[in-house]
């Protein structure tokens, strides 16, 4: 079977107090499911790679085919942990190393 190509999305959470990692991932899953349905969500291959609750940043791993849908779903998120929020995609890359280097520069 051919290996799935993946992309890593660096996210910045614009919210007063960031929720826990599990709550955050649930919120992302929920938004993706509402927007593209369960079949679409199952193709996304979503995984939370890193989560910094204090720095309000996260790194999500998604399948390449679902990058646009996940990006839209993340943009459509307006509430996190019961508070008004926005989640912005800061960078997208094929490897975590390149993503972190891109963020530093």
């Amino acid at each position, binding site marked *: 079977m051919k290996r799935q190509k993946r992309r890593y999305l660096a996210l910045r959470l*614009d919210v007063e107090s960031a929720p826990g990692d599990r709550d955050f991932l649930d919120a992302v899953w929920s938004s993706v499911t*509402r*927007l593209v349905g369960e079949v679409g969500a199952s193709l996304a291959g979503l995984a939370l790679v890193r989560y910094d609750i204090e720095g309000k940043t996260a790194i999500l791993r998604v399948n390449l085919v679902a990058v*646009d*849908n996940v*990006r*839209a779903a*993340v*943009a*459509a998120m*307006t509430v996190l942990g019961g508070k*008004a*929020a*926005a989640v*912005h*995609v800061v960078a997208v890359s094929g490897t975590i190393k390149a993503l972190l280097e891109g963020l530093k520069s």
Partner: protein
Amino acid sequence: MKRTFADLHLRTNGTDPTQTKKLLDKVFELGYTIVATSFSPQAKPEEIRQLRAACSEVGLDFVSRVDLRPHSQNDLLEMLRRLRRRFEVICVSCESKDVARQAAKDHRVDLLSFPFLDARHRFFDRAEAELASCGNAGFEVDVKPLLVLDGPTRVRFLSSLRREVAVALEFHLPVVVSSGVSEPILLRKPRETAALAGLFGLAGEAALDAVSTNPSELVMRNRGKLSAGFVAPGIRVVKQGENL
């Protein structure tokens, strides 16, 4: 070439300069260069001047825009006569079929928008697009409803948008995607707005054009027309000499 991103539909509260400043700061932080805020037809030149100054302080290119909600065709024509030279962008919110048709064929109208909640009042069909393709009007979509709606209402809205955007593309109408928001927390980055546009059939470059090239070209074209040297499309005064 680096894209210049534009949000042609911000809603600011003229009575609250602090909130306006926050909104403009956020717009700049998210990567927009050109921003238009909607004024009512009764807006005073002083209000527009103040907002222009606030935008230039932040580093944004301000565009004055008026949103018209005429009740009839005559109402629309009278408003256009009165307001065309005062604003850089004119958007007509089409709440009746007569108004929608008149707005589509009038060269003075820049953007057509339709009420998002009532599917029966969305008059953007093939006839409307054909008329608009002969004029200058583009089709405007606000992404705010995609953020605030949920469930079947959002599904219906997306369905209408997908149909309308397909018609607009078929007739080569410029599609302009704007935010339509008044709170900073609802603002999204240009590429996120483009990703949201992908949900209703604008994919890849077309979605990015809808937040950059299409609105920028519209603004530049209108600025050219409003400039002192403009005579007619394609003709402008380059230099004035003395009569011999």
